């Protein structure tokens, strides 16, 4: 403002100065200060921009598309050992393995295909290999079916050795059921298909024999273990799948269901909880006529089947329990992978993802939860086998012409898509698509449910009800304090209410959770009665007051109305609580909570939205009150005096002049209050049960975005999808409050200009 002045002064002061140098130094200091202060001032903008961009920076990888890059292409390692039946990789992506149709395991380096070792499985000379199968993708267990009705089961094992800081991994094979093949068919027919699962206490092996019988062998560990090989009790049962071909056998991890599937798409599901008596539970056709099944695998967790068909569709089928507790096999979703048949499927081992390979050389990576295609690439020659690594960051593809492609995959956050964050998702084991937030669990098979809708719903619900409490109290209070109240009382009342805003929310939350919640639970009727009785009491008192003789009324100094109302309100509140039990007896059969439950079907949670609304309303009141009161108080006096002079009553002046003029200020007060309620953390954290449910009832708990961050952030792994989604929740909060606050501030700035021009 005095730029002009100071420069003139500076010039003059130069001439009267003692020493030239000193003067220069002074000017320099002046300049430096000016720059420093400017930088400091602008850094405020920088701070807010930094927060925004940092949050965005963490969230950004969620939006990046996944990528796959070919790293190497080499001929089939040890091609002389036979054709590959199955490919697999170990954790560090250093070693690949292929099992061949001659009963050998070829371990090779993934980067160049160099053979590390070839292990010949101990298959007796007298028999031939007639079938091949395996357990879960992640267990690394495979089985060869033999021509005499026996099977040999093997398991991949990798041991890491450290020499200095260098790691070397030694691959080997183990035989969980012993090196001698297990006899599975009493009739000693050749085994053409085999599928099995080995659990800690029990194992199950499902085979198809050459004469088309399906046999289930159940093995359970004996209590006393003297000899490891003989430590299993076994049982054999036949699954009756008459009426359909069986081309695929699958057995889930929990050893509860066996799936028999034909190329025509006929599926039979057997309940094998009792392995001696398998029960046929479901039977249906998965594909339309003319379309055949070309590949099938379990999705990680063994709850859903991924079925690829000849028209290039990949469908997720799962046993679903509906609300009536009936089970059925349902198609949860399908992806169109291309027009050529799906020839191979390789599910990811720790996420609900899957790689599919089409007959025309296309491969794609999908995530079922997010329902999105992360990667689609075209190979020069079509692949026939695929293996994705345990960490899902690399894969091996074997092409039809006997070469191996080694790809790296960069697909960190496949679970996140617009639909998985904001839409209804049909999760495994759920009857239908739903909005659910359930972000983590200890198990690898867990399907993260990261719908933000329940949290946003909770946030809006909590702040809506809080505003319902806060707006009337704060605005009416602001109207009175800003316009009717005597100045000498106002000077105490205003800071008195404003000091409420300084109270730490942790204390409000604590009182809400441990004092208010039980109080409301006991006095629910009383609380609702307050809403009715208090206004009535005030009006009644005012009416009586207005009838009192003038001389008596004038004894009360101006603007003291609100103070004499305090006893009135206390009295009417006391009455409300006093008579609530009677009322409860008459209207609600003695107890409002049971009445609500029985008649309206509303269940009552102790820490519910009502408690939050009262506590958070209390926290927001001072903020709205303070800004609205300022706006009302600074309405130019000549406007109101003019109105009163023209004969309007004070109330008419208030409504028609003051409120109208101050309305932008009141609007911005409400906005800022709303912004505060949306971001409030401690109160909702302590006063609700933090259950992310979507229920409009005020007697139910909720979980807000902010409380969710406070609860889950300390436990989330840095840079995991969960971590980034929590940052995204923070970004949503930031953006929301940013818009509200900016709007409110612009409105206020304009209002200030308007006032000053009046």
């Amino acid at each position: 403002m005095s730029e002009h002045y100071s420069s003139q002064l500076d010039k003059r002061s130069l001439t009267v100065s003692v020493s030239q140098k000193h003067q220069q130094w002074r000017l320099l200091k002046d300049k430096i200060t000016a720059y420093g202060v400017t930088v400091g001032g602008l850094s405020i903008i920088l701070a807010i921009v930094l927060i925004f961009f940092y949050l965005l920076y963490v969230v950004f990888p969620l939006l990046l598309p996944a990528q796959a890059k070919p790293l190497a292409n080499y001929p089939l390692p040890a091609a002389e050992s036979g054709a590959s039946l199955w490919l697999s990789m170990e954790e560090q992506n250093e070693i690949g393995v292929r099992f061949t149709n001659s009963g050998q395991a070829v371990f090779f380096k993934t980067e160049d295909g160099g053979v590390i070792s070839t292990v010949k499985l101990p298959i007796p000379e007298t028999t031939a290999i007639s079938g091949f199968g395996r357990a879960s993708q992640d267990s690394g267990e495979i089985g060869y079916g033999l021509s005499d009705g026996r099977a040999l089961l093997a398991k991949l094992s990798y041991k890491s050795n450290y020499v200095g800081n260098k790691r070397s991994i030694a691959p080997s094979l183990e035989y969980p059921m012993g090196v001698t093949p297990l006899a599975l068919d009493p009739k000693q027919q050749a085994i053409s298909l085999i599928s099995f699962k080995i659990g800690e206490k029990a194992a199950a092996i499902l085979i198809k024999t050459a004469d088309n019988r399906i046999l289930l062998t159940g093995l359970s560990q004996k209590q006393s273990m003297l000899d490891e090989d003989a430590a299993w009790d076994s049982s054999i049962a036949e699954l009756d799948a008459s009426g359909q071909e069986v081309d695929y056998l699958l057995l889930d991890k929990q050893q509860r269901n066996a799936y028999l599937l034909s190329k025509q798409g006929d599926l039979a599901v057997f309940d094998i909880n009792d392995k001696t008596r398998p029960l046929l539970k479901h039977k249906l056709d998965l594909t339309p006529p003319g379309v055949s099944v070309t590949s099938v695998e379990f999705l990680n967790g063994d709850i859903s089947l991924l079925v690829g068909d000849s028209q290039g569709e990949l469908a997720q089928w799962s046993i679903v329990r509906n609300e009536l507790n009936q089970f059925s096999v349902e198609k949860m979703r399908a992806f169109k992978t291309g027009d050529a048949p799906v020839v191979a499927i390789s599910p990811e081992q720790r996420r609900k993802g899957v790689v599919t390979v089409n007959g025309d050389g296309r491969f794609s990576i999908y995530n079922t939860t997010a329902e999105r295609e992360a990667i689609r690439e075209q190979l020069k020659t079509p692949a026939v086998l695929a293996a994705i690594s345990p960490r899902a960051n690399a894969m091996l593809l074997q092409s039809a012409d006997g070469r191996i492609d080694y790809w790296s995959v960069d697909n960190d956050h496949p679970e996140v898509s617009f639909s998985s964050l904001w839409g209804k998702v049909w999760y495994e084991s759920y009857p239908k698509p739903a909005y659910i937030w359930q972000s983590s669990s200890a198990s690898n098979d867990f399907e993260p449910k990261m719908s933000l809708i329940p949290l946003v719903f909770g946030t809006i619900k909590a702040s809506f009800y809080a505003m319902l409490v806060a707006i009337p109290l704060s605005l009416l209070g602001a109207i009175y304090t800003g316009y009717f109240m005597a100045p000498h009382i106002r000077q105490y009342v205003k800071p008195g209410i404003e000091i409420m805003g300084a109270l730490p929310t942790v204390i409000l939350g604590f009182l809400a959770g441990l004092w208010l919640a039980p109080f409301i639970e006991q006095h629910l009727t009383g609380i609702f009665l307050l809403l009715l009785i208090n206004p009535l009491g005030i009006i009644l008192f005012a009416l009586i007051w207005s009838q009192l003789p003038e001389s008596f009324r004038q004894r009360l100094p101006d603007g003291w109305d609100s103070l004499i109302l305090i006893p009135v309100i206390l009295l009417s509140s006391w009455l409300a609580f006093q008579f609530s039990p009677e009322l409860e007896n008459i209207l609600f059969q003695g107890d409002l909570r049971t009445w609500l439950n029985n008649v309206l079907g509303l269940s009552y949670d102790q820490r519910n939205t009502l408690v939050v609304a009262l506590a958070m309303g209390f926290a927001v009141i001072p903020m709205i009150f303070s800004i609205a009161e300022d706006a009302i108080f600074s309405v130019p006096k000549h406007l109101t005096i003019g109105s009163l002079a023209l004969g309007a009553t004070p109330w008419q002046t208030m409504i028609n002049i003051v409120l109208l003029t101050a309305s932008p200020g009141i609007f911005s007060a409400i906005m800022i209050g709303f912004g505060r309620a949306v971001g409030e953390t401690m109160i909702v954290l302590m006063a609700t049960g933090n259950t992310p449910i979507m229920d409009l009832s005020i007697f139910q708990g909720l979980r807000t975005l902010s409380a969710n961050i406070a609860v889950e952030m300390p436990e989330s792994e840095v840079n995991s999808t969960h971590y980034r989604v929590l940052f995204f929740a923070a970004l949503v909060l930031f953006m929301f409050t940013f818009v509200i606050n900016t709007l409110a501030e612009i409105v206020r700035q304009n209002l200030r200009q308007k006032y000053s021009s009046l």
Partner: protein
Amino acid sequence: MIKEWFKSGAPWVWMTAGAVSVNLILVIGLLLLIATRGLGHFWPADLVEYQYHDNEHPETVIIGEEVGESLQPAAQARAAGHEVPDGAEYLLQHLVKTGNRDILGSDFRWIQDQYIVRKSETADLIVIERREWGNFYGRLLAVKDNGATIAEGEAAWGVAQEKLKDALALRNQIDKLQNGEIGAINYNLERLRLKQRALELKNAWNEEYSQQFAAKKQEYQTQYQAAQQKIGDLTLQLKQCSLSVADANQKRILIPLGRVVKLTRPNQMSVLDKAQDYMSNFVRFVTDDPREANTEGGIFPAIFGTVLMVMLMAIVVTPFGVVAAVYLREYAKQGLITRIIRISVNNLAGVPSIVYGVFGLGFFVYIIGGGIDKLFFPEAAPAPVFGTPGLLWASLTLALLTLPVVIVATEEGLSRIPKSIREGSLALGATKAETLWLTVLPMASPAIMTGLILAVARAAGEVAPLMLVGVVKLAPTLPLDGNFPYLHLDRKFMHLGFHIYDVGFQSPNVEAARPLVYATSLLLVLVIVGLNMFAIAIRNNLRERYRALEN
């Protein structure tokens, strides 16, 4: 006439007045609620002995403090298996703090008024505050020294008090050794290990260092053993004496004096004694360490952590806030830029505090902290030094959060300084910087002070962001101690607000801890309301002064 009265709008004016009253009642009611609950915590309550006889059990004796009573609706009482007299709608029941958690399993018990046969307040009932298992209520039988009874009956009381004094002194010595000497030795050993690792990383580790370090290590080991020896001796001494006491039902137990914190006979105390006891309880609450998963004992580390964090925050926030305010008022041309800055300030004030926590965790802790670790503390890897939530990051996060408070208050102060003063200074030949430094800022200093106090009050009560950037439920060491470099910015700390949340909601024994939470809340509220009042007072005073200047 009533119709007219309604038409005039007078009832609505009364309604608005009513809203103000409701707001005032809420504020005052809330403060009173916290005050009564919090202050009651320290008052030594009388002990009551009940002869109790209910349907299921033979006559028993219950000793305890009566904490509360409530009316149980008849239906509920019947469901709980109590007899309800005809026509009675409610049954009176009392909540008694029975203590003796080691014997009874819980601290509290509801008893039915109708089953109380007799109620008395005998003088010889004692309360023993213990280090474990909460309070003991009962009678003192004897004092034993090495198993031999040294005092019995009436004489026991005096002897017990004397012995307790000795025991507490011993305990004090042990604690001092434990936290002081042993703590220092462990700290030095750890530093030695880190130094060695640093040298190894630089490939400068050689025979000479090796010997030097081994000698130092040896020295610390000997010191350690000596200290341990001392502690062992003291502990042995401490274990010698014990109190033989009987609970309500004459079950005798021995309580070693080393486990006793305090021994009182509240029923024999006069009001004056109780007042004295009240004061000492309060002092212990403020100065002691917490015990039993924070549900008992004092809150000293939480107070210390809060104060230290707030001070560090103040050091950071003041210069930034003042510079920004000075820019807005003194340097910037009022226009688009200042409008944007004002919007930014308001946004900084409006961004939810938890978002600051998220930002602090990601940016300060992981990016800056992680970077510092890589550059300056490679020897500590893989354990993080600054790359983990701690005091420094908590202070910085809160400094960012409270920046708008300082800016707004300072700006208000600057805007009230009359133009004439600046012009006077410039007219006398001072540069703008000199005017600022020598006249404007000194005059605005009370306003800056106000801003700072408000910022401190805000920071002291903020919990949500701290949960992410450095607060823990129990910090093993204070962030300020006698070991170089004395102020440990990387350490985690305790905080009053978080203490309330933690003890009130996460502790295993919420019912027993509740009075303590109220007391902590009261302390926090007092500090914050006090700070706010102080700030308001300064501001009002300032306004008066400027008004005087302008005339």
